[in-house]
């Protein structure tokens, strides 16, 4: 409904000439319109409103207030482009609605003409307004005379005039807003909560979101100069929370990672499931053979696009369950998200090496590593959760990986258990903000505490991983850190921490064909320059889960390498260290609530003032 309202509104009133010529045709159309009106109840109600008003109020004033849209040349073009693009983009996002929209277009066109037929006084208004010098925004009119008139000499004068008109129109628009703000909610995107319709249509919300994004992208020209950027952002965040169902905290955290347009794309793509992908088990078969036998079973598939994986297949549709074919059970392939290939490719295991996978369940990456090594060497597959090792062991046996040792430790116990690995893969436990499409619970479950506790654990794990690698390894000395989260706290902040704590490692290129560079600075935090060598993956950019991959090489031994402290001791040390670390590096410092309270109060007052509300009056009301 919202988009339809938008369309009705954005349609410019006809010029006088046009209008007259239409009138001659209108008698025929009137008959048809009776049918159409029954379809288009909304338009009808609008008409009735107008008729009522006409009878009530002074026609000239009424006309102005009803049509706040007609703007003068200078400004006119911007909103116009804005609406068109907006309509287009919303169509592109929701293809099913396209048909409807088209119908709406046609109907509303007739409807408008209809309106003019019914309201005879309208003609007079038009003439009056013309004589007053207010131009109706219509392309033809401008191309005819205004553009010719416009030249370098009089441009200043003209624009001044236009500004003046704008002002008047704006004021009128504001007046009108108060009268029927319900109809106008789309143009006025900055509604306060209490102004919102109680059961607002989600489409309306979406339209408004897209509109605000437009404004934010071109803030200096499109925004209402009396409003601040943060006001627009606040509104947008509230809409995102409502439309996509995130907690406010998480919505804001994710929103800050992207430009507004990209953020909306990100949120949109989290609503869509990623394509199912499988990985060929090269220990048992070849990709071509597997594809052939699956096609024979009625599976529609193709190699993963982008040519960065030689073993992946993407499944479009299948007449049989892909997780229960004889090929699956005999271990010829494993269901694995495309993003999970990336850390293994980055790890680049070589034959005969000793490799540790610190958090391995359910074994997709472990078996990939094992396959890359052609069952030579040793792969230690560790997982903290004993229950999850079941599926890990099942996958290892099903895929025929004979070179694995499955153990169940807190990964921080390494290198006490055993160290000196050639390569270590740390696919760290994370908040899962990259896989919201897979697990929508993340939207609501994640709290501030998670974004402190989990990175805290990740840092310890990464240090343990670094300490467990053999820097003298002839072929390796590599640590790959990956998460399925896009939050900076779990990605860049963690590897930056590791670089600070262990000067004997350096970041190297991941060797991955796709991916975006990681941030080297984020919201005032500066990371080490080399952090840009790590790679980020987003669902909207590559159609894989949100992911992060960083590859370290250990250049020399350190005193920590024969660290014999257990996980508990490490945790205790880390807690102690955190107190100092927080102050030095602003890395989740302790919060001083009393001190913060003052600043919060102050900024609240400031923001109220900006919105034109007297903070004191608000207080008294709430009391």
């Amino acid at each position, binding site marked *: 409904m919202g988009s339809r309202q938008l369309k009705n509104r954005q349609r410019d009133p006809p010029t006088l000439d046009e209008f007259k010529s239409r009138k001659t045709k209108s008698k025929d159309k009137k008959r048809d319109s009776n049918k159409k009106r029954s379809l288009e109840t909304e338009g009808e109600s609008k008409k009735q409103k107008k008729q009522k008003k006409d009878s009530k109020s002074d026609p000239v004033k009424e006309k102005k207030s009803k049509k706040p849209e007609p703007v003068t040349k200078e400004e006119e073009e911007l909103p116009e482009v804005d609406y068109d693009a907006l309509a287009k983009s919303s169509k592109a996002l929701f293809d099913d609605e396209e048909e409807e929209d088209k119908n709406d277009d046609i109907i509303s066109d007739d409807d408008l003409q209809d309106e003019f037929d019914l309201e005879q006084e309208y003609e007079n208004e038009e003439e009056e307004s013309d004589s007053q010098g207010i131009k109706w925004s219509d392309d033809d009119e401008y191309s005819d005379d205004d553009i010719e008139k416009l030249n370098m000499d009089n441009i200043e004068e003209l624009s001044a005039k236009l500004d003046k008109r704008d002002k008047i129109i704006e004021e009128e628009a504001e007046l009108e807003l108060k009268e029927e703000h319900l109809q106008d909610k789309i143009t006025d995107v900055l509604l306060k909560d209490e102004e919102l319709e109680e059961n607002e249509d989600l489409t309306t919300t979406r339209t408004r979101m897209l509109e605000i994004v437009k404004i934010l992208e071109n803030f200096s020209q499109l925004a209402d100069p009396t409003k601040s950027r943060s006001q627009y952002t606040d509104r947008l965040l509230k809409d995102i929370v409502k439309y996509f169902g995130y907690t406010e905290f998480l919505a804001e955290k994710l929103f800050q990672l992207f430009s507004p347009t990209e953020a909306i794309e990100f949120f949109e793509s989290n609503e869509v499931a990623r394509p199912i992908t499988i990985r060929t088990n090269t220990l048992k078969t070849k990709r071509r053979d597997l594809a052939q036998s699956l096609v024979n079973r009625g599976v529609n598939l193709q190699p993963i696009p982008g040519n960065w994986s030689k073993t992946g297949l993407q499944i479009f549709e299948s007449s049989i369950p892909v997780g229960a074919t*004889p090929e699956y*059970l005999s271990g010829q392939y494993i269901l694995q998200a495309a993003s999970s290939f990336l850390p293994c490719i980055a790890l680049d295991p070589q034959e005969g090496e*000793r490799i540790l996978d610190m958090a391995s369940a359910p074994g997709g990456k472990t078996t990939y590593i094992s396959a890359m090594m052609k069952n030579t060497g040793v792969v230690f597959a560790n997982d903290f959760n*004993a229950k999850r090792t079941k599926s890990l062991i099942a996958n290892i046996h099903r895929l025929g990986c004979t070179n694995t*040792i*499955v153990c169940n*430790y807190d990964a921080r116990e390494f290198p006490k258990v055993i160290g000196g690995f050639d390569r270590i893969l740390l696919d760290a436990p994370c908040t899962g903000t990259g896989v919201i499409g897979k697990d929508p619970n993340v939207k609501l479950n994640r709290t501030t505490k998670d974004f402190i506790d989990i990175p805290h654990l990740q840092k310890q794990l990464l240090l343990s991983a670094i300490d467990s690698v053999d820097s003298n390894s002839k072929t390796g000395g590599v640590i790959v850190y990956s998460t399925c989260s896009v939050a900076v706290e779990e990605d860049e902040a963690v590897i930056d921490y590791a670089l600070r704590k262990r000067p004997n490692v350096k970041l190297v290129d991941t060797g991955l064909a796709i991916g975006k560079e990681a941030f080297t600075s984020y919201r005032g935090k500066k990371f080490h320059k080399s952090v840009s060598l790590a790679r980020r993956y987003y669902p909207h950019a590559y159609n894989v889960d949100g992911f992060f991959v960083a590859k370290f090489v250990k250049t020399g031994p350190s005193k920590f390498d024969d660290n014999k402290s257990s996980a508990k001791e490490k945790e205790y040390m880390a807690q102690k260290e955190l107190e100092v670390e927080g102050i030095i590096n602003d890395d989740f410092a302790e919060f001083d609530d009393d001190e913060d309270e003052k600043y919060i109060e102050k900024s609240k007052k400031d923001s109220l003032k900006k919105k034109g509300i007297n903070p004191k009056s608000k207080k008294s009301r709430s009391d």
Partner: protein
Amino acid sequence: MRQLTEDETQKVFEKLANYIGKNIKNLINKDHVFRLQKDRVYYVSKMIANYATSIARDNLMSLGICLGKFTKTGKFRLHVTSLQILAPLAKYKIWIKPNGEMPFLYGNHILKAHLSKVSDNVPEHVGIIVFNEKDIPLGFGVSSKSTNDIKNVDPTSIIVFRQSDIGEYLRDEDTLFA
């Protein structure tokens, strides 16, 4: 984790010999060893077994390939995970038609109707490895009829009793790998 005792070794080898007969000597070589961890028997390369000694007994969940487990009564039972070791060394084989694959993977015995081909000279009541027509091993069982007798039975009669099939990876994940 420890080596098998003589008694245990005998029980394991008896079971294996059921399916691979004399080929069992291919399993015994310098590079590979049998190891007992908790109640399970693993067949694993010596190098890996040595590395596994650094993992505490409670924390070691699996190594190499699991052949099967000793039951509480002291008998040895082969698991489906041993299939990848048995299949290449199989003494007797049976191939089943595509329409028989799914019934077998759901845990049913093999009927004559699903028979594609079978090794010659399969006696009654011996271990036999089951393949599909693409030579993918699907499980193992015990023949109920000799090759000659199979010709004379009606299509709905059972020719191989199922003992283990790869469908167990889905059906018995909870108990198989605990």
